[in-house]
């Protein structure tokens, strides 16, 4: 790719993303026209031009042609690589812009992990409390039956004694 069309260059300048890592130019027939950048850094192996892009990059299946701009945040193609993907249409062609998101990902992941772990802990605590409450109700019920049984036994014993002595 020699240079970006002016609209794509404008688009890249207008968005607040970190450094662009790679750019793919795809024609209206989903064929890869050209590409530039460091794809290995994103965990993507080499691409062949003049061939269908969806058969090379499966994640674009169903995404093309892009009518509006599509932004996919934190996409991971390989363990440890994270990318923001912008799919932009320009003059019947599609440009797929890949931005490195690894640093941002690590921060976000850490935060989300803490939130989810806390939610799970709260849930387990509630489940345990519910189980404890059920056990307490059972114990109370057992006590009630036990007391009723003792009272009944005492009553029948008293009746039997009365019959015997009077």
């Amino acid at each position, binding site marked *: 790719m020699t240079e970006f069309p002016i609209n794509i260059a404008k688009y890249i300048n207008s968005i607040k993303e970190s450094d662009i890592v790679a750019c793919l130019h795809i024609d209206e027939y989903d064929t890869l026209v050209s590409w530039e950048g460091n794809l290995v850094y994103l965990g993507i192996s080499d691409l062949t031009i003049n061939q269908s892009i969806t058969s090379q990059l499966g994640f674009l299946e169903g995404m093309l042609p892009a009518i509006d701009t599509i932004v996919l945040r934190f996409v991971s193609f390989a363990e440890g690589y*994270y990318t923001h993907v912008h799919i932009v249409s320009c003059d019947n062609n599609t440009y797929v812009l890949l931005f490195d998101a690894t640093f941002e990902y690590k921060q976000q992941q850490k935060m989300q992990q803490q939130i989810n772990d806390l939610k799970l802990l709260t849930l387990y605590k509630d489940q345990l409390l519910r189980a404890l409450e059920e056990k307490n109700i059972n114990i109370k019920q057992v006590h009630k039956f036990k007391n009723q049984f003792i009272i009944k036994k005492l009553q029948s014993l008293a009746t039997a004694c009365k019959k015997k002595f009077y």
Partner: protein
Amino acid sequence: MAILQKKICMIGDFSVGKTSLVAKFVRQTFSDKYLTTVGVKIDTKLLKLPDGNQVKFILWDIAGSDSLTTTTASYLRGAAGFLLVVDGTRLPTWNSALNLRLAVEKQIGSKPFIILLNKADLQEQWEMNEQAIEEKTKQGWKLLTTSAKNGMNVEQAFLELALLMT
């Protein structure tokens, strides 16, 4: 002849086992450690159908949530079907799945899906409501009880979804 590609999305609340199901299906691995997904992780797997044909699944393992955000909605474009995952030991994740299904349908239209009641190996903590499940089955929904831990119905789930899509 080029192999047919299908984009499949893994959808469900956080920590229900989406990433674990994909790991079991694609790599035959399982880990007890919970590492929450941020964004989306893309995997591929070639699946052989009973008729001898092959289909390449492009799996989009989407970050868990109880509702569809603008970020997650953008991942759905072009999906041919989806697996709706529920944690059988947490009842609220069932309701999340029902809400998510409606939101997904609004976003991409009606697509084949299967509900997976995951973590079936934890039967003593099972919280699913049999009546609600029966109701959905009667409505024609496909539900499967799965375990990413012991592999129960994992391969089956993907295969059945493939069959629903062909």
